[in-house]
């Protein structure tokens, strides 16, 4: 196992290098004048375009620019992001906790709901529960996120005033900027607990409800379907029939025997889902004004903020590799046959 993990980790720098080189090269297909537009906020600045190209070395050969960028990276500097208005690493460190918090709560809900509904659907196959569960998950997959998000916002915030957009209300926002508050993790719910501020925890949770609900509704569908089909296959297995024939209660057969084996493919998917959530869910972040990494990533791409895009790609290539590795390890933990292989 440790050799397996070590082998996968050794691949990490090569994957990161390959991804960033590819992105860097593709972006160089754009002319220097187009890449210089990042530094122009108003047409009045057009006359300065040649000087801007010169100043930011945008007319240098691609290998020179890439080598400069790589040299910076090796010194721990991912460069400056014009779109974030701060160093790329600082921006990632700033945006990531918000995305991580959203991803964590969403993932927990997706996992619990997805496995529960998928299991229920399989066990109650072709009954009303199964039909309801599948239609709900299909509607979640079919309805565009921004439509669902906006509807939730209009009803639960616009009409009832319960769950506002953004990450915190004004009073909470001012409090977390004050010297009385100590940010330990960047996750506001956790930090609120660690600071002993229950009202802050409630405020942070209130703001999480709608974006988490949107993501959960949208993504649970996939997990429900995988869990359901995996459970159905497992429930048809000989050992399950044997367990039932032995007189074990249905609950025990499903929970202790079938589900554990049915979860094997679910684990792989769950790992990928979590990494996907971590890379930022742009539409949800935009609809709910959530200061996450996805929204920044899209802005950076649109405005050709090359340091941001390549830095972003570097970090998330690494996370994807690690995410897959965790999924593979978990897979091996759950299934002894994989360990033996």
């Amino acid at each position, binding site marked *: 196992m440790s050799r397996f993990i070590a082998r996968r980790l050794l691949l990490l720098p090569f994957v990161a290098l390959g991804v960033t080189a590819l992105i860097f090269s593709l972006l160089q297909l*754009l*002319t220097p*004048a*187009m*890449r*210089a*537009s*990042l*530094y*122009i*906020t*108003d*047409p*009045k*600045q*057009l*006359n*300065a*375009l*040649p*000087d*801007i190209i*010169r*100043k930011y070395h945008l007319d240098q050969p691609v290998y020179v620019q890439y080598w400069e960028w790589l040299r910076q990276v090796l010194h721990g500097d991912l460069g400056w992001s*014009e779109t*974030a*208005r*701060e*160093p790329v690493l600082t*921006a990632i460190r*700033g*945006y990531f906790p*918000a995305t991580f918090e959203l991803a964590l709560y969403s993932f927990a809900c997706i996992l619990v709901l997805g496995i*529960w509904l998928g299991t229920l659907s399989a066990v109650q196959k072709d009954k009303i529960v199964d039909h309801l569960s599948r239609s709900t998950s299909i509607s979640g997959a079919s309805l565009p996120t921004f439509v669902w998000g*906006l509807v939730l*916002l209009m009803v639960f915030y*616009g*009409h*009832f*005033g*319960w*769950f*506002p*957009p953004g990450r915190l209300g*004004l009073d909470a926002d*001012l409090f977390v*900027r004050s010297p009385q508050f100590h940010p330990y993790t960047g996750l506001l719910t956790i930090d609120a607990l660690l600071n002993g501020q229950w009202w802050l925890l*409630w405020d942070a*949770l*209130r703001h999480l*409800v709608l974006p988490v609900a949107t993501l959960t509704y949208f993504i649970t569908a996939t997990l429900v379907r995988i869990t359901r089909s995996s459970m159905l296959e497992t429930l048809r297995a000989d050992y399950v029939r044997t367990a039932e024939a032995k007189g074990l209660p249905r*609950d025990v057969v499903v*929970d202790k025997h079938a589900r554990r084996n049915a979860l094997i493919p679910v684990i792989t998917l769950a790992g990928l889902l979590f990494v996907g959530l971590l890379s930022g869910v742009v539409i949800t972040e*935009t*609809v*709910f*004004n959530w*200061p996450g990494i996805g929204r*920044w990533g899209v802005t950076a791409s649109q*405005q050709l903020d090359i340091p941001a895009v390549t830095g972003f790609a570097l970090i998330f290539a690494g996370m994807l590799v690690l995410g897959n590795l965790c999924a593979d390890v978990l897979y091996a933990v759950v299934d002894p046959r994989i360990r033996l292989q």
Partner: protein
Amino acid sequence: MSVVAQRGLAVVAIAVVAVLAYGTGARGAAESVRNPDTLIILTYGDPQSLDPAYAYDTASEGVIWPGIYETLITYDGSVLSRYVPRLATTVPTLQNGLISKDGLTYTFPIRQGVHFHDGTVMTPEDVRYSMLRFMLQDRDGGPSWLLLTPLLGTDSTRTKGAVTVQYADAAKAVTVEGQDVVFHLKHPYAAFLSILAAWSFVLPEKWAAAHGDWDGTAATWTKYNNPKLQDRYEFDHTNGTGPFMLQTWDRQAKEEILVRNDHYWRAPAKLARVVIRTVTEFPARQLQLQRGDADAIAVDRPDQSKVTGMAGVTVQDGYPALVIQVFHFNQKIDVAGNPDVGSGKLDGNGIPPDFFSDVHVRRGFAYAFDYGTFIRDGYRGKALQPNGPIIQGLLGYDPSLPKYTFDRQKAIAEFKEAWGGKLWDTGFHFTETYNTGNAVRQIGAQIVKDDVESLNPKFHIDIRNIQFSSFLQLTVQHKGTLYALGWAVDYPDPDDFAQPFLASNGQYPKQNGFSDPHVDQLVKQAAETADPARRAQIYRELTKFAYDNVLAIYAAQPTNFVVMRSWVHGWYYNAVLPPLANVGFDFYTMSKQ
């Protein structure tokens, strides 16, 4: 999961939602003022820099001026032709002798007892330093040209990347004489006060130097010339004299928080705090305004109906903006590798590089453009049709001067005369461009296409939308054919519009291959003449020239509107204040009750 566990989970979930909902409560329509000491503005652009010598975008300037940094003089409320003193004690005039008779010297007595936000006292040396810094920092595409041009006679400290300005010249241009700061102009410039009213921000020299900025000496200034965004401490730190101080600029949350300066040299502001937040999605802004969690929001014209009639919200409309939307004719198109000119010849399948150099072609387009439909569809009818680059609200604007109207017969007549009569029989084919996402320019481009093509089946115009980055490249490389770009006010003087649209060294004439020494002479004369009546006459002459020669289609001057909660008071419209939420805000005069 067992049935008991499932039921337990459901009960917990319901309980959590109930507690959260109870903790919030729904709001009724009749509600007291939310956050009475805090003004919350939701906009959709975030600042680039808080350095007053670097910032040249409205999102940045709206944060720093006039809340954090103040100017020597400023406009008298909404009236742009009248000034009031701020960091100076008196507005210079010819009558009080603070403007010399030759118009080359402006003397500003500096106010005493004014403190910066860090507690230090403002001195005339700080004012001088700030003016020199503003000029000499001169970052690419920045605002430094605004002072460089009148004081040093150049719009840049550099030529092809190399510094060409001498420090001694700059040092002579701004001097301290006792408690006065004196500006020595290169040429008389009637708009100088107008520039200073919007751009003479003051920050402390010692504080700047202590934080790695220029120390104010001749020996070091070139090292601080043309910085990158992040090179200066002032990028995200402020130290002004204004009624508000910067508490936070949170670049992740896209939020700036200003707090009241209780040691302001005038009475402290009524508001304790101002929060400016970027919220890109209109529904989120709209809902927060509706709930009272925001006091003013940015609203695009097409969305105006969604906020009109909202309970507790007022919409004030009809404020003329000092902005113009223009469709430009490129009279010297670079056809090399240019996909937008077809064959590159006047053969019915393309256009030659000098296609738009024929005034009959330009006039034909000007008569063929349906201005009414453009204003109706692009601006919901809330715009004026200009008669040239000198727009309403500026000295010299004369509504009685002629402007082009949509007239198919006249358009046909002009096209029949174009290119010695050849154009009508040959036809043409080219592509016009606009930047992706700009709905107004898209509407305008479509109008041009539909109206011109309807005149003659041999006239073909395609439309191409391209990313802003590509669009910029296209125009700078002279590859644009007929394209839309506007102009927004830097300072409310007609020279700010005449120069970029008409002078040979102006932005658009340079891009579009236009040059006329007589026009240059007129622009220069109007800029240097102190007599307003004479200036107005020259600008009328320039407007007539622009009309006769059809340098562009001057399509629209939009009007502004503001959307605010009715509990906000003290706002006034000033067309020069950088728009944060459609319009600019002077937080000092505002309150909530």
